[in-house]
């Protein structure tokens, strides 16, 4: 009541004093993604506990202390839960912060949400000026007042400056090219003087090459450009009202970054500009996936988010006491003497910890009961969870009301949704997601929305399900309850990227290996990764060629000739003539010609659009069949043939990796078409036999083929012998 009165008073104040606008924020209480499924099927993401406090409390507490006076909370999925929570929480009648909720069920993206707000606000005109746009899963302690002031002043000078985007320095992993929050590495280009955002590249960056393509016009129109690859987008934006109308005008904008920012930067809509603001010592991060859930939780425990830390009562949370080694313990914890609670751990109210338990780097919620000899490492146990004796839980998320029966094991990356029961001695495989609800059908998982979750009457399904469970047992052991969700195709390889578990060693080794292979090849052309570039450089992606490398030029020329021959349908004899003249002018051997021609042929095959390996194989073999005459001219001797095989091997390893798996098959084709003869293959195999393991990959691939060749020749020999006899 008091809050409403105050709000009213402030409005009238504003009309008197135009210069001071009240600070407003739009908080999107829906992420419009499915990254937190299956948990978000039952509870909206913003209410999920982050170190035992609902995420939205962090955001609201930060907005309040940053001086925001009015927040519009946009609810979509599970809107009633969000609204109920806000009404019972202390934000309901907060003296400094008026929280208003906007409810919509039709929005399936941030774009829709903003369009809805725009429509609403044209009627009520609640949003009067610049506003802060955040999502409800933001954890930050940055001051906003100065930033908003900066934005306003810039707006006064330049009408077109409609948005200020907050970025923070954070180094991405050198190996996985992922930020610590589990999002892809971000490339942005900023004008060093004005801080205007010139380029924003979140996806489509070629990590393997370590390069990014910039538009030439970018360099022409800006005297200097600062490129960053170590910035993290905090998803905190100061927007002018024009942003809302832009969304209204471009009804196909869905995603804030992928569509809106790209649209403004690339399509140059009305010359609007986006600026960036880098925050120094403050913290800002968004909980976007399970990996960032883990990272942000650890940051909170390590107090980077101060004063939003567990031992300070900032929202509705009850403060806990901080002990040595960063152990936060609430007051009613019952802990056995023999239990070992290690560093960076939070234990909530009324939780019981049994004999011989080992708990490390974990967050345990309120009212949990943990049996004896349980190991919990790097996990997030929410409220009222029962864990029986001898369980092992590593790097998992366990939601409210879960029961884990004695001896069960959760492998890294497991997510157990609400009220799942894990059976006795059952081992939940790594990265599996378990829910009492069945995985939705393919059709609606295509639409990436949390919204679909809330509409489909989860409660009904739940009740029907429990009956079913009792009758037939479950996927989680005979006394368990819950479905293990299948990982959608394609996402399977990516699972380790976004999981709570750290990336396994072997995965890291695999990526490092791939990187090394690439580096070896890339030695000659070094691409600058980040730095200030003057406008005289056309693009940072210029291929640097060693001028002394005659063979490189020769190869290029041969390739050009060959392609022309293919396009114009030139006869083999004429092709031979042209390549011969090239050979003479570059002073090359016929073996070099053979290598270069073969290289061109394979390159053509790879460059021809193809969808699968078998298709690639078909094109390659047809090209070989068609141009074997040309190639055959230069591969009359065994040495030349070996050169072709070597060239082929080199290609498979470096430039055209797609051909790698097809090595043996294509070699077979070459053999069949008489381009390469048995002797050459045998000699190549002999030569390679002495090489180190890494080089032998292709030899091993063709092992059966070579074996067959050997046998065939032996038979022949035998035949000959017999004949002789």
């Amino acid at each position: 009541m008091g809050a409403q009165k105050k709000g009213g008073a402030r409005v009238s104040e504003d009309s008197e004093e135009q210069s001071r606008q009240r600070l407003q924020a739009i908080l999107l209480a829906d992420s419009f993604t499915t990254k937190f499924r299956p948990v978000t099927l039952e509870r909206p993401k913003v209410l999920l506990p982050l170190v035992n406090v609902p995420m939205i409390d962090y955001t609201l507490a930060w907005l309040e202390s940053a001086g925001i006076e009015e927040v519009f909370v946009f609810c979509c999925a599970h809107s009633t839960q969000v609204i109920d929570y806000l009404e019972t929480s202390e934000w309901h009648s907060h003296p400094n912060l008026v929280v208003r909720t906007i409810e919509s069920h039709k929005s399936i993206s941030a774009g829709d949400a903003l369009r809805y707000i725009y429509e609403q606000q044209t009627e009520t005109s609640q949003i009067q000026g610049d506003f802060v746009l955040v999502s409800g899963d933001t954890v930050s302690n940055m001051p906003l007042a100065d930033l908003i002031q900066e934005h306003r002043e810039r707006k006064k000078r330049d009408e077109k400056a409609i948005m200020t985007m907050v970025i923070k320095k954070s180094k991405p992993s050198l190996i996985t090219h992922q930020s610590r929050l589990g999002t892809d590495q971000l490339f942005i280009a900023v004008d060093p003087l004005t801080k205007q955002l010139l380029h924003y590249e979140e996806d489509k960056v070629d990590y393997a090459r370590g390069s990014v393509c910039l538009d030439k016009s970018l360099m022409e129109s800006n005297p200097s450009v600062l490129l960053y690859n170590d910035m993290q987008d905090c998803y905190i934006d100061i927007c002018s009202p024009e942003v809302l109308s832009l969304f209204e005008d471009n009804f196909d904008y869905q995603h804030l970054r992928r569509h809106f920012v790209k649209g403004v930067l690339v399509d140059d809509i009305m010359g609007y500009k986006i600026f960036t603001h880098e925050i120094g010592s403050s913290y800002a991060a968004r909980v976007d996936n399970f990996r960032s859930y883990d990272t942000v939780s650890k940051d909170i425990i390590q107090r980077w988010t101060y004063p939003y830390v567990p031992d300070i009562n900032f929202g509705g949370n009850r403060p806990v006491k901080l002990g040595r080694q960063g152990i936060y313990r609430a007051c009613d914890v019952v802990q056995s003497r023999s239990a070992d609670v290690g560093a960076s751990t939070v234990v909530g109210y009324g939780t019981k910890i049994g004999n011989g338990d080992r708990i490390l780097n974990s967050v345990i919620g309120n009212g949990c009961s943990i049996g004896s000899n349980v190991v919990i490492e790097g996990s997030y146990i929410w409220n009222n969870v029962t864990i029986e004796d001898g369980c092992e839980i590593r790097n998992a998320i366990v939601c409210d009301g879960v029961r884990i029966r004695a001896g069960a094991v959760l492998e890294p990356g497991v997510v157990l949704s609400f009220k799942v029961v894990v059976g006795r001695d059952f081992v939940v495989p790594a990265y599996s997601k378990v829910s009492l609800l069945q995985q939705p059908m393919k059709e609606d998982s295509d639409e990436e929305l949390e919204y679909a979750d809330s509409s489909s009457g989860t409660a009904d399904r739940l009740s029907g399900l429990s009956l079913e469970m009792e009758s037939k047992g479950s996927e989680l052991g005979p006394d368990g309850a819950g479905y293990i969700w299948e990982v959608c195709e394609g996402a399977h390889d990516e699972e380790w990227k976004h999981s709570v578990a750290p990336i396994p060693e072997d995965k890291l080794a695999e990526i490092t290996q791939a990187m090394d292979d690439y580096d070896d090849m890339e030695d000659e052309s070094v691409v600058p990764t980040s730095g200030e570039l003057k406008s005289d450089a056309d693009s940072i992606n210029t291929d640097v060629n060693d001028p002394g490398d005659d063979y490189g030029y020769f190869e290029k020329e041969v390739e050009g000739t060959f392609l022309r021959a293919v396009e114009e349908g030139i006869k083999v004899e004429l092709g031979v003539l042209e390549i011969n003249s090239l050979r003479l002018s570059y002073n090359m051997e016929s073996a070099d010609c053979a290598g270069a021609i073969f290289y061109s042929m394979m390159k053509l095959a790879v460059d021809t659009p193809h969808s699968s390996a078998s298709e690639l194989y078909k094109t390659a073999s047809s090209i070989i069949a068609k141009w074997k005459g040309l190639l055959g001219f230069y591969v009359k001797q065994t040495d030349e043939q070996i050169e072709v095989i070597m060239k082929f091997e080199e290609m498979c390893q470096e430039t055209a990796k797609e051909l790698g798996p097809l090595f043996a098959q294509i070699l077979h084709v070459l053999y069949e078409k008489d381009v390469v003869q048995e002797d050459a293959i045998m000699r190549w195999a002999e030569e390679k036999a002495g090489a180190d393991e890494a080089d032998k990959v292709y030899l091993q691939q063709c092992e059966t083929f070579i074996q067959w060749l050997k046998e065939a020749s032996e038979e022949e020999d035998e035949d000959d012998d017999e004949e002789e006899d």
Partner: protein
Amino acid sequence: MPDVQSTVLEFVNKLRKRKIEGSQATAKCTVELLRSVISQQRVPHSNQASALIDAVKAVGEQLVAANPVELAVGNVVRRVLHIIREEDLSLATAAMAGLDLLDASDDDGEDDNCKVVGYSAMSAAVAAAAARSTLRPPSLQTLLEGTPESAAVPYTSSSGADSESKSKSADKSSITRKLKHDVIEGVNHLILEISGCHEQIAEQAIEHIHQNEVILTLGSSRTVLEFLCAAKEKKRSFRVFVAEGAPRYQGHLLAKELVARGLQTTVITDSAVFAMISRVNMVIIGAHAVMANGGVIGPVGVNMAALAAKKHAVPFVVLAGSHKLCPLYPHNPEVLLNELRSPSELLDFGEVSDCLDFGAGSGSPLLQVVNPTFDYVPPSLVSLFITDTGGHNPSYMYRLIADYYSADDLVM
């Protein structure tokens, strides 16, 4: 009433979010808030003192819980409670004296014995209470005796007012009004004391700082600033070494202010304190809180300076306004001695972010950053406390503290 409620909430919020810094500002805000709580509190006819005490306690608990590290809040709440008890007691004694007179004047023979017995018994109780209040140090007897003064005293006044005489009832209502009035008067006095503590302490500067001395201080304290400037104004010429007070570097601010006031200032790093201490004649620091045993809670690094001073027999002087005197001992379980602030004050997040990537390795944070705000200096390292009432030995602090607080309020 709702007004007070919302201001309380607002203040609680500020405390929680650590928006108010410095004991003096906090103390001032707290005492002003409590004054408005008292003035808004409706006082019943009986037990007025306990009603006030309850109201103040209720608000006080909220405030203390909001920021348990800021001991000044608890100190001020206890001071106000003490004021209420004191005023109540003095009124009761005054009333008793009046009643005794009254009793003597209209003596009409009925129930005479009974009354006299009753009053004398009561006056004895009051006298005992008064005696106890003059004998301030919380003796074992006071602590063990179950009956708190507050329970006994209001009863006395109300039962005294039970008498049939008109003059007495008039007296009673005046007492009611007078109590609240007196309490607010007392609280106003406290406010003056808190805001004037700098001057009070600074007045003594001339006695402690001598010509051509070298003074070392650490971190930033307004009390120290005023103290040094007061000496400067009295034409003392001396030099000041300021240890910067990492990681917040408030010493830099202090150095700026000192230079602005024309003092010869040298800034040193915290780690150079030991190296410089042999040239120093006196260490002067401002305290965050002074515990009942004479121990000091000060900015982080202060213990190191105290140890260095001890080693070189340099006097270690602590300046503390009376609101910083805490009636609790550092070993009390409810005392939270320290607060860990954000690691970003030490390290740049962007630079170390690769060490904090939990995606690689074991997933456990290998890099820990601890950033404590305070340090505890045991009383044995402190040479002198200078409060607004003068200079005191560490061993005398408990006595001083007993003057300001009543034993009943120690545990809130």
